[in-house]
């Protein structure tokens, strides 16, 4: 037998490295506590070139002070970093690339920085590993993209370093879990240091350092949609969605996107849907951020439960007062969790409905436009059939039967709907022969065109023209005509085969408002349960406290 090499095997190199980092940081901390003045030096001490770093931040909560501090480190010391994080939202994230501290990124969404990122990619100054979905990126934290350094944001710490992440827990547990248990350094910025936390969300022994940031971490009120901006066309589409999709399939568990189209549906539940007798029959259980536009539906008793990815600014008191609906801790504040809510949206919901910018003839949809690399966050997880799903529900089973009428083995299908007005302002078409995503992939050297939801996963398209039941189509040709049939006056719509479209209509694959018994003239703003932010405040009994730039009184 061959003996292994004489060198004894070492199995804790990473651990030794972790301890060496802690030793370098020790002089700059008092226990786990670091002062804001020392944070840049601490980062320089514990970070090594080539590290995978996660700067926590989603489209809501941001570890903005740590991001700023990292951007102030010496690029000679802190370099060749690989960012592995949900969102590249802050200008500092881009500064890190421009300053040469970061050379590679893996992420999910870039929002406001999409334009700058595209420029940096074209200039060859940054390499993108992949643009993930949230779940996919979280998954890779535990396989091949484990962060070596996690810079996270929490609301409060106690003196020992236990953290309270509060209503905006969001991504923190997933990030910390991966870093803390794989020899990574966890550094938290907190808004306050207190004697006793309302509850412990992250235990102190998973945290290496915490720092009180000079200003509270930024939270974007991303899910606030002012009802005043909802149009008659969106109301019409919401009526079609409620009658032609929700009622038709009896959808009880679901997720909504964040646009005005879905906000319109939410505001029609206590009025239009209630009149149709749908209370208790649809929209009872949600994976959803606490949208303010849900308040009237909740107050009307439409909703049984909501689990959230994150929270929403101004909704704190309302949520705390509705523990029957939201997931609220023993302390009274909500607990969100993006990873779990994404899992819920993917596996436990029967329907996802959201908007998009472009849909092609196969039903592929994308929000990507030329010159902007933005990604899709969680939409692809929600907006895809969960092939691993094994529990049945009437809506899921029915969709499965419609999609595979001849299959021998009974199986369901997730309902994935895109809701979109056929043209945006100034005749910009939502339906196109070819997605802009192809051009973007070409110009940025991406391996895949950035498609948000693949056509094969889309079961329904709703426009102001009507609803297309794509899952009922038998051939790709039928599918194309079904899409053209609701594409209105876009070139795609005008090129439809009128005979085939009439045939699809006879078979209930395309249904226009008149086929559904919807009177278009009823589509007025009077149908909204709330027509302004103020109406939402009143509906909440004064518990909802909207962000100041949403108020007009």
């Amino acid at each position, binding site marked *: 037998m061959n003996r292994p090499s004489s060198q004894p095997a070492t199995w804790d190199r990473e651990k030794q490295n972790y301890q060496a980092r802690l030793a370098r940081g020790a002089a700059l901390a008092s226990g786990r506590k670091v002062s804001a003045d020392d944070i840049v030096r601490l980062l320089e001490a514990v970070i090594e070139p080539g590290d995978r770093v996660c700067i926590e931040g989603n489209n809501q909560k941001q570890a903005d002070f740590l991001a700023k501090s990292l951007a102030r480190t010496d690029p000679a010391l802190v370099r060749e970093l690989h960012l592995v994080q949900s969102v590249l939202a802050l200008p500092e994230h881009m500064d890190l690339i421009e300053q040469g501290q970061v050379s590679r990124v893996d992420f999910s969404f870039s929002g406001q920085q999409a334009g700058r990122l595209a420029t940096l990619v074209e200039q060859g100054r940054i390499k993108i590993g992949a643009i993930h979905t949230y779940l996919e990126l979280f998954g890779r934290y535990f396989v091949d993209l484990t962060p070596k350094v996690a810079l996270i944001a929490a609301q409060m710490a106690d003196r020992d370093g236990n953290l309270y992440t509060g209503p905006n827990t969001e991504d923190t547990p997933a990030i910390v879990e991966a870093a803390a248990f794989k020899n990574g350094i966890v550094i938290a910025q907190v808004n306050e240091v207190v004697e006793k936390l309302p509850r412990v969300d992250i235990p102190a022994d998973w945290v290496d350092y915490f720092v009180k940031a000079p200003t509270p971490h930024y939270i974007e009120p991303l899910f606030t949609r002012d009802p005043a901006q909802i149009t008659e066309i969106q109301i019409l589409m919401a009526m079609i969605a409620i009658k032609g999709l929700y009622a038709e399939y009896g959808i009880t568990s679901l997720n909504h996107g964040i646009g005005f189209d879905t906000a319109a549906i939410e505001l029609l539940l206590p009025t239009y849907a209630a009149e149709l007798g749908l209370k208790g029959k649809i929209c009872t259980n949600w994976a959803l951020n606490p949208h303010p536009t849900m308040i009237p539906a909740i107050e009307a008793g439409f909703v049984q439960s909501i689990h959230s990815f994150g929270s929403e600014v101004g909704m704190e008191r309302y949520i705390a007062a509705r523990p029957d609906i939201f997931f609220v801790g023993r302390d009274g504040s909500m607990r969100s969790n993006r990873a779990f809510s994404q899992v819920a949206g993917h596996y436990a919901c029967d329907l996802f409905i959201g908007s998009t910018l472009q849909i092609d003839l196969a039903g592929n949809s994308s929000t990507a436009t030329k010159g902007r690399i933005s990604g899709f966050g969680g939409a692809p997880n929600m907006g895809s059939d969960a092939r691993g799903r094994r529990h049945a529900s009437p809506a899921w089973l029915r969709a499965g039967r419609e999609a595979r009428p001849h299959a021998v083995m009974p199986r369901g299908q997730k309902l994935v709907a895109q809701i979109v007005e056929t043209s945006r302002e*100034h*005749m910009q078409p939502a339906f196109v022969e070819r997605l802009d995503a192809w051009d973007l992939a070409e110009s940025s050297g991406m391996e895949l065109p950035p498609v948000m939801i693949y056509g094969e996963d889309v079961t329904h398209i709703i426009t102001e023209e009507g609803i297309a039941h794509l899952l009922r189509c038998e051939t790709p040709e039928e599918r194309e005509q079904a899409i053209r049939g609701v594409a209105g006056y876009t070139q795609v719509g005008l090129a439809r085969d009128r005979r085939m479209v009439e045939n699809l209509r006879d078979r209930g694959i395309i249904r226009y408002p008149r086929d559904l018994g919807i009177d278009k*003239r009823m589509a007025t703003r009077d149908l909204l349960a709330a027509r302004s932010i103020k109406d939402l405040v009143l509906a909440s009994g004064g518990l909802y406290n909207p962000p100041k730039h949403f108020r007009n009184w």
Partner: protein
Amino acid sequence: MEQFVMNFTVTNRLATTPSPRVCGVVSSGNLEVLVESGEPEDTCRIDVHTPAEGFRDIWSAVLRDFVERQPVGGVRITINDAGATPAVVSLRLDQAIDFFRSEKP
């Protein structure tokens, strides 16, 4: 600015001559539609004023469908558009003609 007129010949004609009606407001993404009685009685004449140039085909498709839905003769319709989508144009035309018909002469 683009301006054009389209005339559609229809069989239905109005029994009465209601007063002119205006529907909608000229604001971004919206339009106003003025409906009046006009000559000849088998024609629906539609004047369009729009700031978006190069969409005449779409306009004619939208208007053709409208006249198909609401074949009313002896009517003159004038549109001041401010970048409305076809969906909004169709909805406003339907509302305008409804209001017009319900108007007393």
